[in-house]
């Protein structure tokens, strides 16, 4: 179990996925989307799996990134690297604001607040249609040409996304292994103790939000360039919902599980939606099945399989990353 939960191994798996996707998929859009949502889901996982915060507001940051790309690229011709940097900064700032307000309440109240804020930002985008294009979104978002390299072709854009994905994924792995990441795990495990031991818990939660918001906004910006539109739907409740669903399906204990969750969801959605337009019904059933029988997600399933095969069922205690069954921030009546 130690080997399959090693962060270097997780990076290797992620790199392997990046290399394999073009071999098995015909659609460059789908392949890129898997990596882009992989980032957004990993960012959601940083909150859910590592900090114990179930955020229904990830679509806010995704949408913000998407609009930053749309607005800056179509109206101001800002260079793409600078645009990406700005989307990261704005995503982090908005995440700090949303996080700061939402963590004033705990447990389910926190969840309800994040959902309400996602509605707030949706209606903000909807109401200021001069800036966001309202229902139509912002059209004709170009793909980048950087230093003579042309990424406008779908598959070349895939490699542009892939490099960014691997870099950010490595940074996030590093974050989860750092003193910061370990402290987040401590907060997830026992918030009262973390505070009694001397950690300013709120500051850590807000910092986790900032990182999560930054990465999700980056994913949103990459997505807008991929599909050529910054649509209103990027900031919708539905985006928050699918990011969260992918996170839970993958498993909330480690970051590669997030890529697994994103990939599985996107592939299934791609196949099922062409077969049956009402496939969301099946998704609903799948969610219930996951909650009842597969609480540690796909990664948990793999862990169980591996431990059966190797029969080294003894748990290693080295553990923050090992027990994906996280605990929700204490939802008591305090």
């Amino acid at each position: 179990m130690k080997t399959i939960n090693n962060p270097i191994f997780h990076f290797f798996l992620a790199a392997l996925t990046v290399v394999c996707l073009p071999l098995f998929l015909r659609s460059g859009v789908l392949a890129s989307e898997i990596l882009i949502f992989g980032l957004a889901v990993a960012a959601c996982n940083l909150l859910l799996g590592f900090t114990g915060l179930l955020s229904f507001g990830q679509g806010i940051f995704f949408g913000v990134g998407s609009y930053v790309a749309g607005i800056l690229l179509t109206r101001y011709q800002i260079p793409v690297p600078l645009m990406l940097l700005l989307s990261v900064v704005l995503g982090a700032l908005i995440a700090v604001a949303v996080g700061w307000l939402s963590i004033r309440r705990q447990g389910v109240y926190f969840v309800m607040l994040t959902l309400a804020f996602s509605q707030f930002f949706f209606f903000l985008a909807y109401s200021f249609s001069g800036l966001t294009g309202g229902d139509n979104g912002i059209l004709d978002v170009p793909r980048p040409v950087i230093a003579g390299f042309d990424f406008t072709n779908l598959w070349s854009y895939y490699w542009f996304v892939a490099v960014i994905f691997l870099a950010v994924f490595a940074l996030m792995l590093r974050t989860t292994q750092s003193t910061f990441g370990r402290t987040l795990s401590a907060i997830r495990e026992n918030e009262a103790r973390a505070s009694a031991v001397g950690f300013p818990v709120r500051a850590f939660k807000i910092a986790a939000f900032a990182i999560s918001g930054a990465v999700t906004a980056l994913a949103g910006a990459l997505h807008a360039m991929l599909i050529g539109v910054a649509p209103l739907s990027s900031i919708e409740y539905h985006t928050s919902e699918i990011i969260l669903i992918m996170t839970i399906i993958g498993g909330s204990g480690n970051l590669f599980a997030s890529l697994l969750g994103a990939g599985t969801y996107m592939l299934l959605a791609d196949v099922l939606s062409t077969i049956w337009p009402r496939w969301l019904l099946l998704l609903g059933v799948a969610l219930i099945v996951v909650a009842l029988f597969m609480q540690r997600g796909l990664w948990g399933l793999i862990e169980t399989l591996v431990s059966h095969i190797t029969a080294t069922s003894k748990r290693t205690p080295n553990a923050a990353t090992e027990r994906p069954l996280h605990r929700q921030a204490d939802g008591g009546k305090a």
Partner: protein
Amino acid sequence: MSIHNEALKRSGHSSGKHAPAPHPVALETSELTVAYGSFLAVRGVSLSVRRNSIHSIIGPNGAGKTTLFHALTGRVRPSAGSIRLDDKDISHTRDDDRVRLGIARSFQVTSLFPNLSVQENLRLASQGRTPWQALAPWRSINHNKEAMATAGEVMERLSLTQVAGRAAGELSHGQQRRLEVGMALAARPRVILMDEPTSGMGVDDIEAMKELIRSLAADHTVIFVEHNMGIVMNISDTVTVMRAGQKLVEGTPAEIRDDPEVRRAYLGNMITGDIA
């Protein structure tokens, strides 16, 4: 030699290099009051805890011990009065900030990070003294050598070294209680607050805990709330008896045992235990 002088002498090695000028009183409350709505759980309690002494707080259920304890840890805010640590007002300091000022606590119901290893629990507890350092997502956990070393020392002291790699939740009950105390020790505090340290323990474990608390006084000031009168009477330098939110009596264990008021408060039958 009076305990007072003894305390002064011992206080020299109680804290790190930035130790403030030794003050004979480690922790002091004056007219401390905590109200829940209109109910005064603690009213006008003045305590003076000498440095490197063992000070226990006892009283019947509902006497306000736990609320007083929470006020000292910073979990509840006093509605009136003040708390001073080494003559510095900390009445309105948050619980996590109090750790940096030198107060650490253990919980009545064991409160650990159950899925993290013993070593990691203690490392986190030690890191809690410099929490803002831990905000850096690029810094590896090995960066803080001091925290790693402290975790090692505390495990050694509490005989937990053999289980360093085990998840805290998998330890035996006695080991968990020791780790619970270790979590406070790892912060290298000047004052340790313990909430019923022997709660739920078997006879053998209680004896070990008693020795542990006694040994803590060499480097720390210990304040604890406890129901087990054997321990209280045995190891305390000073006992404060509370009733109905107020301080009833305070004195040495011998004085407390002979006090008629205390006997009445406890219906005469709960104060037992020999005096060392």
